[in-house]
């Protein structure tokens, strides 16, 4: 039901042509669309009901993300409604409750600033927050902040003497310098320089020196939702490819009559099915046993990364020349899959977590 409602809404309000128009106009954020999604209850899907949200859980968030993957919607959904919301929900002081209610109405977007290198690696960061009086002075350089260009607020991981700490920073604060990334998937991304940004003691999310407590659940939630998005993306790319195999004729027959292509298409479908199971399991584990969800989430992100990349590569190949043209949508799928593959940890990162959980 949720999936059907989402599909109906997205087909009307955010089909792939919407992404194309945004790209052509050089825009990365459609505030009207985000407001409409908030009215559907999506911005607050994970926000508790007493903070104005739907309080529905991760399985539901994954359903929405999956549908968004089908039409390649660019929105603050994962950074704001999944990742930041999970951070605020695990803090749950008055400030956080206020933030949650503003997220649910679509009035505030938030991005997570963790990465500093070319690969996702939250354990190795150099940004620092020095204690100054009652507050902190934050300096560092963050890369590939997804949703970071349009976000109203940033959650920034930095070292303190007490250990890694997550800080809340207003995006328009003095000393915050954002530069737009021209991402291949036409999405919202920024590199951000924090140049002696003055923060008060309230800016700490959760406990000083205990960033992990609030960050780990939020990253897992984001990884699961991203895996769901990639699975939706993969199914849509496979669906387009199958439709083309039935339509395109060569040698007097539809190319889908050639067994070499049939078997590759069938194999892709199988991969999608197996990945879908891992994604469903990740959402279920986050909802029922979040403390033990690490392996389930990484399994989903690893599988989804692999499947989405295979789906788009085969998708372009089986479309022939038209698959290479900008006029045709498959290229958008390929570019989004590449960006999503890297964001929040690539195949190797997550396969390694699975392996560790299984004793290697």
């Amino acid at each position, binding site marked *: 039901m949720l999936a059907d409602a989402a599909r109906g809404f997205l087909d009307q309000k955010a089909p792939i042509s919407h992404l194309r128009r945004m790209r052509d106009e050089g825009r990365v954020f459609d505030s009207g669309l985000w407001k409409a999604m908030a009215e559907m209850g999506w911005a607050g899907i994970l926000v508790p009901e007493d903070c104005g949200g739907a309080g529905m859980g991760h399985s539901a968030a994954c359903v929405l993300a999956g549908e968004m993957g089908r039409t390649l919607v660019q929105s603050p959904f994962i950074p704001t409604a999944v990742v930041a919301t999970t951070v605020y929900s695990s803090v749950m002081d008055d400030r956080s409750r206020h933030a949650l209610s503003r997220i649910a109405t679509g009035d505030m977007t938030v991005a997570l600033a963790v990465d500093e290198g070319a690969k996702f690696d939250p354990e190795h960061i150099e940004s620092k927050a020095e204690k100054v009086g009652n507050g902190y002075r934050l300096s560092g350089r963050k890369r590939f902040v997804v949703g970071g260009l349009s976000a109203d607020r940033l959650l920034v991981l930095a070292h303190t003497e007490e250990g890694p700490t997550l800080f809340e920073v207003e995006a328009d604060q003095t000393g915050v310098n954002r530069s737009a990334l021209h991402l291949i998937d036409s999405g919202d991304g920024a590199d951000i320089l924090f140049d002696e940004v003055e923060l008060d003691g309230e800016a700490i999310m959760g406990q000083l020196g205990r960033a992990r407590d609030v960050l780990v659940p939020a990253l897992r939630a984001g990884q699961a939702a991203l895996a769901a998005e990639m699975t939706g993306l993969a199914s849509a790319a496979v669906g387009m490819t*199958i439709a083309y*195999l*039935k339509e395109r004729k060569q040698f007097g*027959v*539809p190319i*889908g*009559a050639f*067994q070499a292509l*049939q*078997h590759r*298409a*069938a*194999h892709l*479908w*199988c*991969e999608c*099915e*197996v*990945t*879908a*199971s*891992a994604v*469903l*399991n990740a959402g*279920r584990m986050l909802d*029922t046993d979040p403390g033990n969800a690490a*392996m389930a989430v990484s*399994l989903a992100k*690893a*599988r989804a990364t*692999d499947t989405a990349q295979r789906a788009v590569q085969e998708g372009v190949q089986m479309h022939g020349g038209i698959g290479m043209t900008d006029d045709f949508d498959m290229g958008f799928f390929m570019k989004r899959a590449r960006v999503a593959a890297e964001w929040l940890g690539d195949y190797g990162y997550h*396969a*390694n977590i*699975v*392996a560790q959980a*299984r*004793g*290697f």
Partner: protein
Amino acid sequence: MAEETEDLRAFREELRAWLDQNCPQSMRDGRNDEASICWGGKNWQFDSEDQRTWLERCVTKGYTVPTWPVEYGGAGFDRDQDKIYHEEMARIGARYPLRSFGIWMLGPALLYFGSREQKLHYLPPIARGEVRWCQGYSEPGAGSDLASLQTRCEDEGDHWLINGQKIWTSYADKSDWIFALVRTDRDAPKHKGISFVLIDMASEGVSTRPIKLISGKSPFCETFLDNVRIPKEQVVGEVNRGWDVAKYLLTHEREMISAGGGVMGSGRALGAVLADSETGLSDPVLRADAMRAEVNGLAMALTLERYKDQAEAGQGAGDASAMLKYMGTELNKQRLEVLMAAAGADALTWEDDRAPSWLRAKANSIEGGTSEVMLSIISKRVLGLPG
């Protein structure tokens, strides 16, 4: 997973207590491989007294075929109860009390297509492990193109007369009965002249000759049918409509093969295997291969569960069983390649059980329909591609 209801919790506790009391210690070693389990049948030699006791106790409760109706020897479990049964069995490492082609293949087909008399006559002896069945589908000239089979079955008034040859008939030499596909109409299009018949292997004219496999074992045979007479009522479903029965049965067979007879996912974590091996953890290529195999194996195990959740208890996954079989068997082969590489020379002798199971698994993507045939089924029936 949804919270377990009060009823299911009570069910689990009762089952757990029963298993604790009734499953002999020696049957708790988790061994469910081809050589360790009880296959039943008139000629079955129990490996041990415990194996016999375990079977007998399970039979009284219907636990050999838990999802079958009670009147046919089952326990009448629904999907939730069946899941708990498997979880509780796995928890203590209990062996399955009985496995057989009767349970995996013929039973589901009879439950769906059989007459009430046939169900009452054939199912309980399967559930009790008294009659062992084998599968007579393939012929020398009819493998992937199964519907081209030529074994003749002629109407002789008060009985059928059967002549032909089957091949690759697993355990034919150990089985009591065979379910077979035969041609009852030679003029009809190939799918429309086939019937599904039940033949007592003790009938005059039935003979078998074992064939040796690359794994060193001889689990399958050539089966010859020379002027074999069977009673008229030993046809399942309608005459000339046997292809429907055959296909339905194959979906169950494929799911069973996909699950590797229950080893997928429950097998030893590859991490433990690598840690035991000489270079496992330091060889980057082996580790990478193992990681990929582990990721895929876990996702596949979840997929098997998901499809079981979707189906009614006892029903199959339909055309999607082709996906389960294709992915399950290919991924299992991939996993066994990693196991062999990790073990190195340790696994290269016949005394070691790894090489035979690695070799045996190569058949999984052939038997029950090859991987290529599975892909063709998916592309036509699921994806709707032409041709």
